[in-house]
């Protein structure tokens, strides 16, 4: 009986950890969307509001980490539960980084709306939407236990990278045509770079989800084969 009670408590703790993680992910998705809007709409108020959301995300990172440690210490979870808890600890780090990058974009949005008017590169909103979809895709894969969705996120990362390179090339060209706008164009180029970084973090998330669901680590395949070989030798 005592065992059942402990098990039930453990289940409840995992469920509430999951909810907190989803809430944090939802906030981060919202921040990406708002940062993108603040930039193209030159909306300083929206930029400030979005930056304020970062505090909640930082707090969530600390709280979720702590919750995970408590669960590890109290219940010593095994197998998929253990993978879930360690995944949560890693996911919050990536989510928090993405939020930080969104804050950076908001800062640039404020700078740009104060400077001379400049047209934001048309691909920036496309990148923002893609990155937002990538993060949402990783989290959806996590919620639905659907590793195919996570693989899709990994496949789509190239699209974000391609857009970044295009924005980079176009910005260079525009700098050449309008040297007086170099300052603003550099800001826009940085925004593209941060969006590209967000895309990378979303692929990290997807890899973690694949690890949780399939139990195999697909990060850095070159080291993976070495590790597997090492394990083989050790087992022999």
């Amino acid at each position, binding site marked *: 009986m005592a065992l059942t009670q402990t098990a039930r408590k453990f289940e409840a703790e995992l469920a509430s950890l999951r*909810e907190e993680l*989803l*809430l944090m*992910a*939802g*906030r981060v*998705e*919202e921040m*990406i*969307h*708002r940062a993108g*809007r603040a930039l*193209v*709409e*030159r909306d300083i108020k929206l930029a400030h509001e979005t930056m304020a959301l970062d505090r909640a995300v930082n707090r969530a990172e600390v709280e979720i980490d702590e919750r995970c440690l408590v669960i590890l210490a109290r219940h010593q979870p095994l197998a998929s539960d253990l993978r879930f808890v360690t995944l949560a600890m890693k996911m919050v780090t990536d989510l928090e980084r993405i939020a930080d990058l969104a804050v950076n974009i908001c800062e640039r949005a404020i700078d740009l709306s104060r400077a001379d*008017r*400049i*047209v*934001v*590169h*048309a691909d*920036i*909103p496309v990148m923002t939407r893609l990155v*937002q979809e990538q993060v*949402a895709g990783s*989290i*959806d894969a996590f*919620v*639905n236990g659907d590793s195919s969705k996570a693989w899709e996120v990994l496949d789509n990362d190239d699209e974000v990278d391609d857009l970044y390179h*295009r924005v980079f*090339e*176009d910005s260079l*060209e*525009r700098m050449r*045509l309008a040297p007086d706008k170099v300052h603003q164009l550099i800001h826009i180029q940085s925004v593209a770079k941060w969006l590209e970084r967000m895309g990378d973090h979303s692929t990290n998330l997807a890899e973690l989800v694949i690890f949780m669901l399939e139990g195999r680590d697909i990060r850095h395949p070159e080291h993976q084969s070495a590790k597997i070989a090492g394990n083989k030798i050790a087992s022999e």
Partner: protein
Amino acid sequence: MSLGIRGKLLLLSALAIALLVGAAGFFVESTVEDTLQTRLEHELQRHAKAVGVMLETAAAGDSLDDVADRAAEATSAEIAIFDLAGRTLGSSSLAPIELEQLGTASSDPEVLAAASSETSSALRYDDARELTVMFVARKVAAPRGAVIARAAAPLNTAHARGAIRGTAVVAGLVGAVVVGLLLFAVGSQVERVLQPVVSSAAAVKAAETLDGEEPDADDGPPSLRSVAVELERTVGTLSSERNQFEAVLQTMEQAVIVLGPDQRISTVNRAAHTLLSLPERPVGRTLLEAVRVPRLKQLAEEAAEGGTHSDEFDLPGGRRIDARATQQGDEGLVLVAQDVTEIRRLERVRRDFVANVSHELRTPISVVKANTETLLDGGLDDPKVGRMFVEAIHRHADRLGRIVNDLLDISRIEAGRYPLNPGRINVGEIVDHVLDLVEVDAQKKKISVSVSVEPDLAVIADRKAMEHILINLTSNAFKYTQDGGSVEVTAFAADADHVRIEVLDDGPGIDPAHRGRIFERFFRADSGRSRDMGGTGLGLSIVKHLVDAHDGEVGVDPRSPRGSVFWFMLTSDGDASANEARVASATAEK
């Protein structure tokens, strides 16, 4: 006639007991008869053997008949002695005289069988005595050769049978009484349990008016039957109400999510799927698992404290929703969300229009007013200064006139009163004609203009409207292109039925955020600058209205690395196969 439950039970058990006792009696009877028969046979065998012994020890003068009589006396059985041919030599049941009269040999089967096989037995019914008699014949040695000794005795089973039957009847009666008592006790118990059910069923029947329908007596007690009918009807009503509720819920434009007491989704409608992009099977999930929108979760949490709470916010996909959450006691929580994106956009358009139109009209009017005041205050006396003021008045009156004309054009197109006479228009020709009209603006800014129109391309359109569209788009392009820049006009078959005409500039481009609004009346991406350029803020709006009036499409795309592409598509006039061939060759070239 009905028997009632207890009567039926009693009758059934009486029948069962009778059958049981009858079967048992029959079995016992036959067993006892078998046993009696076997015992009698053994006994008669012994008697026949005894006759043999008596024959061996008999005195020389004793006749066989005497021996038979003596043996019968000793064994209390009927004894007869035959020779091997079956002739009767002695019998305890016959007097010596009768014996002598008995001329023929015995035809009794046991006697004949015993002559050949040592011993034999038979059962025969004696008509005279009215009973079954058992005969056992045995070949025995006698001083004067072997003879057959036969012992016979009645098989008296009637007594045993009577005893058995008596016992069975007594046992049956005792059983019936015991079962009857037991049934009575159990029946009372069952009646006590069923009584409330029956009476409440009767009460339900009394309370309900059964629209004249009499329950069928064969299907059970009338009250229970009516309860069944009522239940069926209630279930039917409930399910049809549920279906109606489901239909209403599913056709609602508002998104509805119902959370159960366990904080998990219990119901959603189709609109919720569309508006909130729910996963395939949202029922059973938590709100955050289905919709990762923190504001919505927060709203649900606030409502859980009690009362109705509402909030308006953007979804990550860009739609704006007005959401409302209400806690329904302990039943759960209802979330209703409405898409207000379009409403808010239209509100903004209307607000901007009112602000813009008054601003646009006020500027020239105040210039005219200030200049006339100056003239009246003595400016008229100085012809040189006077001319300058009058020219300014003229310029602004022109501007006012243009704005009013444009506004009138728009309202005419909107009201469908802009006369359209669609006909075949050669695209290359009309582009050249329009460029002739506006090229002077390009020359002033040293803008190079290039035209690339596929030959023989034609559309179905109103000539005046088409000119209006092209003039507005090209003059915009010249306005926003820097000195020494370039503008390009291209036209090609977009598909078998449509021609796409594009005006490409290398101006500053248009912010992605403004692209959707650029065709609104008085909308200016960069208000100060475009007003400096002398625009009315209505040119693109007129273009959109005219293209819409032709059932065409219009839009603006960014041009890489800078500038914009304004395009519109109209129905082509020309044979579709030629257009298809053009599209195919263009695709192949790419």
